[in-house]
């Protein structure tokens, strides 16, 4: 385990940036944190988390896939990908780290998504434990330990220091490269910090959120629940929840005619949108209720069904705080989950 005093943390950032790009949460002018490329003067945000999740680094909102050039009757297909370089995403919370697992299960299984895979290979994630979780946090419901995030590197911020622990080869390599700016450390303070966090976690309003009702094989139980009607009735059908969500992985592939060729790109799609998965015959989910249901059934039933019971939600609380009408997965779980959750 290594450590660095927080006063000197910029030295750490500088050391990383010397060899690769470093991204970390930085406060924006509206007071909200967003992942930003580090350069001198940028300060690591104190905020619990960013509005947009770090999935953007591996699965960007918009990503060019290829380009077509048309000359007469010939079409040339051009791979426009640039050679990838290593980069570090620093300050990722336990929930978001877990979210990468969920994305991996989608993108890295056969057929493997090479766009995603390349970025995952080159990305090094430094996760940081959550000292001050928010009332909207419910990661513990999904078995995530906010005090002990497991990424390439795990980190803990104490009053004066930052402790770093490598968990993977990539992580070790990174810490090795940072030996000049860090010093050897014991786990004492970290254990203390973990305990403190654990205490807070128990006090969170959503600490007891029960997921046991949900999981694979529950389609019949929930699909026709009368609650969907009421839950979805004020849904605006916007894409906020899906776009701030660290685990939503749906995308659309579109062509953009530049006038000189066609760029084929993919971009995030939202199951809340009326044209989501529209097919030649039309749409299979015609009402907002059906679209709303799809999102939560996917997170709570369909995904676990296909992925050894792992839920498609990590309890980061982004949708809880960002939904324009304050409808979210917590309310859905409590309403569908019966009295135990009331």
């Amino acid at each position, binding site marked *: 385990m290594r450590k660095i005093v927080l006063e000197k943390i910029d030295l750490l950032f500088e050391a990383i940036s010397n060899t690769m790009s470093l991204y970390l949460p930085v406060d924006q002018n*509206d007071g909200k944190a967003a992942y930003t490329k580090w350069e001198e003067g940028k300060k690591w945000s104190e905020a619990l988390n960013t509005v947009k999740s770090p999935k953007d680094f591996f699965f960007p909102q918009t990503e060019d896939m290829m380009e077509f050039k048309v000359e007469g009757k010939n079409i040339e297909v051009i791979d426009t990908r640039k050679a990838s370089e290593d980069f570090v995403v620093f300050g990722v919370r336990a929930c978001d780290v877990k979210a990468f697992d969920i994305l991996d299960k989608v993108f890295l299984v056969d057929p493997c998504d090479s766009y995603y895979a390349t970025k995952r290979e080159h990305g090094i994630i430094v996760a940081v434990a959550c000292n001050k979780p928010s009332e909207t946090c419910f990661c513990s419901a999904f078995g995530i330990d906010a005090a002990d995030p497991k990424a390439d590197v795990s980190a803990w911020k104490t009053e004066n220091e930052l402790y770093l622990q490598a968990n993977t080869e990539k992580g070790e390599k990174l810490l090795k490269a940072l030996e000049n700016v860090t010093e050897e450390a014991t786990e004492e303070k970290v254990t203390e910090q973990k305990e403190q966090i654990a205490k807070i976690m128990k006090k969170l*309003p959503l600490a007891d959120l029960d997921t046991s009702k949900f999981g694979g094989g529950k389609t019949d139980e929930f699909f026709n629940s009368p609650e969907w009607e009421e839950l979805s009735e*004020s849904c605006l059908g916007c894409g906020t929840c899906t776009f701030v969500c660290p685990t939503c992985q749906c995308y659309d592939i579109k062509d953009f005619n530049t006038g000189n060729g066609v760029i084929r790109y993919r971009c*995030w799609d939202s199951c809340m*949108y009326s044209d989501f998965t529209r097919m030649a015959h039309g749409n299979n989910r015609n009402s907002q209720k059906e679209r709303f249901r799809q999102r939560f059934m996917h997170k709570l039933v369909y995904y676990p069904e296909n992925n050894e019971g792992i839920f498609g939600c990590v309890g980061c609380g982004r949708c809880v705080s960002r939904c324009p*009408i304050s409808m979210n997965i917590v309310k859905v779980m409590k309403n569908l989950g019966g009295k135990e959750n009331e």
Partner: protein
Amino acid sequence: MQKITKEMLIDKATELLNNGTVSLVLGWKKGEYDYDVTPGVFESVEELKKDFVFGDFSAANLSKYLVKKTEKLEGKILVFLKPCDTYSFNQLLTEHRFDREKVYAVGVQCDGMVDIEKVKKIAGDGILSVDCNGEDIVVKTLYNDDMTIAKADVLAERCANCKSKKHVAYDELLGESGEVIDSNRFDEVEKLEKMTADERFAFWQNELSKCIRCNACRDACPACTCEKCVFNNPNSGVENKSPANSFEEKLFHIIRAYHVAGRCTDCGECSRVCPQNIPLHLLNRKFIKDINEFYGEYQAGAEVGSRAPLVDYTLNDLEPGEVFDRGDENA
């Protein structure tokens, strides 16, 4: 001035349900916390008693829901409208978006809504309870003991610059209806106007770059009730799902603001719902300010049936080239 409590609204709704005036009630439902209020429909007195709330977080403008909720409705729906919501209500009526006969509108006195983001900025994260009590609010968090904050300091931007406490439409009123207010709502616009073009460009480039094209602004906007939005229509030539680059970001927000220009009542929902806190209302207010200055004061939704300025004209209107000659703003 009397304080309006949720009980008063529940009583009113109960009365109207019981006497058969309405069959549904459109109001606000309590959430997980004190602040995450959801718009909702209530069908019975029991439901009202269980979940109905009204308070400093009943910010959502319910008028837009009338478009969908009245579609197949037999009988009437009761809707509670704060003063600014009544403007949207009228504007929707002007555009024939719902049948007035199917709605029983109760105007509710509004003392301004609280922005939870502002509360969090002062009190910190981990909010356990927010107790709103007239002038002050008491906040309890995981990390702090009770903290008392002046409500004035955490008012939502649109409420701090409230344009009107007057209900311009209602069948019945709960509490008092106030007056149109000579607010400072154009101050921010003016500040931007006074900047150089380069500064303005930098400002908007930065703000709009945050856009994630979640469409929340559009989907919450009571003026955006198109059956099919041009941005969802593959044949429109502007359809897109993502803010692919800075052009797409600008295109979306310019066209959206233009499409609601003269129809936007300045209800502020766009900025309220933006997950990225982009001050979108400034775009709308720019149009409103321009329209007021170019063509005379106009408040969309102030009356039903009024002619929006961009579907109107006079013989001696300002020339587009003269827009910039009204005194050199950068001098």
